[in-house]
């Protein structure tokens, strides 16, 4: 439901490492975009810059009509759900409370001190749990669930925010193939049915091919491919996964064998 405009983003860390060297992209509202690239290419940094978990050295991010600044972070974040590789649930809280944390930006600090939520919040969290098929686990402790279930709770938490955008940072990197399939399917379904803009970092080319509308390929902090899924041919993949400028043909063979 919201377009994301990434403009000339540069990110230089305190140690001088330049993770992003001027990245620009426009992500259409309601689309499903996958960011591919080798480890260290800047995928996570880019995703985390979108909701301000990282502050860029230069450039701007615009979500919908809002330019992200340090001053409107809370407001922006309330509309951007995030899903993490390691789920990042609060282990000792129930599944329900974890999902309810998605509603926090709409609640006052006083109510939060007493762990109080409104009826409407409970209903939204309940709906989110129905969407991910975990209603029966509502009162289980989050750390008692399997990895795939925990990631579904992570998605429910994002859904409870009623977001316009969902960012997923390698959401299936810690999951087995079956659970990966489920999670990607769920994200795709959310994108298609609710029109929520979904941006996913992935390592699996094959999943990207099947689920994405569009691919952004990053390598060493630069966009090396930006286009439809169909354009992911051998040469493009070679460019995305090249190391120090050398095309890695041998590894590519292996990689494509699995793709």
């Amino acid at each position, binding site marked *: 439901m919201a377009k994301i405009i990434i403009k000339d983003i540069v990110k230089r860390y305190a140690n001088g490492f330049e993770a992003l060297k001027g990245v620009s992209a426009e992500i259409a509202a309601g689309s499903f975009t996958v960011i591919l690239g080798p480890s260290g290419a800047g995928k996570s940094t880019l995703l985390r810059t979108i909701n301000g*978990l990282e502050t860029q050295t230069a450039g701007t991010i615009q979500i919908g009509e809002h330019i992200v600044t340090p001053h409107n972070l*809370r407001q*922006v974040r309330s509309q*951007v759900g*995030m899903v993490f590789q*390691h789920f990042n649930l609060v282990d000792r809280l129930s599944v329900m409370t974890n999902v309810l*944390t998605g509603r926090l*930006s709409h609640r006052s600090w006083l109510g939060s001190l007493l762990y109080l939520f409104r009826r409407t919040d409970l209903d939204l969290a309940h709906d989110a749990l129905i969407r991910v098929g975990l209603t029966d686990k509502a009162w289980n402790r989050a750390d008692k669930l399997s990895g795939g279930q925990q990631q579904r709770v992570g998605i429910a*938490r*994002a859904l409870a925010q009623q977001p316009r955008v969902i960012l997923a940072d390698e959401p299936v990197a810690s999951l087995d193939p079956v659970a990966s399939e489920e999670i990607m399917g769920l994200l795709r379904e959310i994108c298609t049915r609710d029109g929520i803009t979904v941006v996913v970092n992935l390592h699996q080319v094959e999943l990207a091919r099947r689920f994405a509308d569009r691919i952004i390929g990053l390598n060493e902090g630069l966009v090396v491919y930006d286009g439809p899924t169909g354009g992911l041919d051998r040469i493009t993949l070679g460019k995305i996964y090249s190391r120090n400028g050398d095309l890695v043909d041998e590894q590519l063979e292996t990689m494509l064998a699995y793709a």
Partner: protein
Amino acid sequence: MAEEIIQRPALPKKPFNPTSVWLSGWLALIWLIIVDLELSFETLLYGVQDILEYFSRYSRPNFDDLSRYVELLGQTLATALWGSTLAIVVAVLLAPFAARNLSPNAVTYRIARELLNFMRAMPDLLLALIFVAALGLGPLPGALALGVHTAGFLGKFFAESLERVDNGIYEAVTASGASRVQLVMYAGWPSIQREALGYMLYIFDRNVRMAAVLGLVGAGGIGLALHDTLRMFNYDQSAALIVVILVTILTIDYLSTWLRGKLN
């Protein structure tokens, strides 16, 4: 078949293991201390006889006054409970400010840290003396002294636990647009719940022991009675009091170990 000669590539140079250096340094330090303070093991050996004789005076505990002792024990326990409660309240309020990753800014962090350090650095015996002078004899100054001193400890423990929570959890809650207070309430405390309860039990356990001692400076409870009997050389009554204190401390120790085991 001839033996094959396996040509291995050389390992990198083995890193130096400093344990022996540390150990000999430590032994040298201990030896220096013994020489410098003229600690003598001979004196200790000669003194064993006297020590044994002194302890033998405690061999016939007199429980005639047991009901009074139990009442005093109640006072001591109440002092410890109030002191611990005060410590918990203060620590819960201060700890998030003293945790580097939750504190709003460096200045607040410093202030909270130093405040906790200060409270910790004030010995509770000294605090009790001050409060007794200001408020008079009784359990109240004892509770205050324990509260202030252990709030310093508890606050530091809490803050450090809060700092150890996986940063991803804080990030996830922050990313949903939560405020700082909400971050502390939904990501901080729930994540350290078990540790925090363990620390609280430990602090209570410690405060019971200390509350018994605080009586010696006039802060009420069973310690005051022990102080009196010792001064009047009533070794049999002192012995009974010591037994009562010992049993209590052991019971509480077992209880808190059991409770902490339950929590895990």
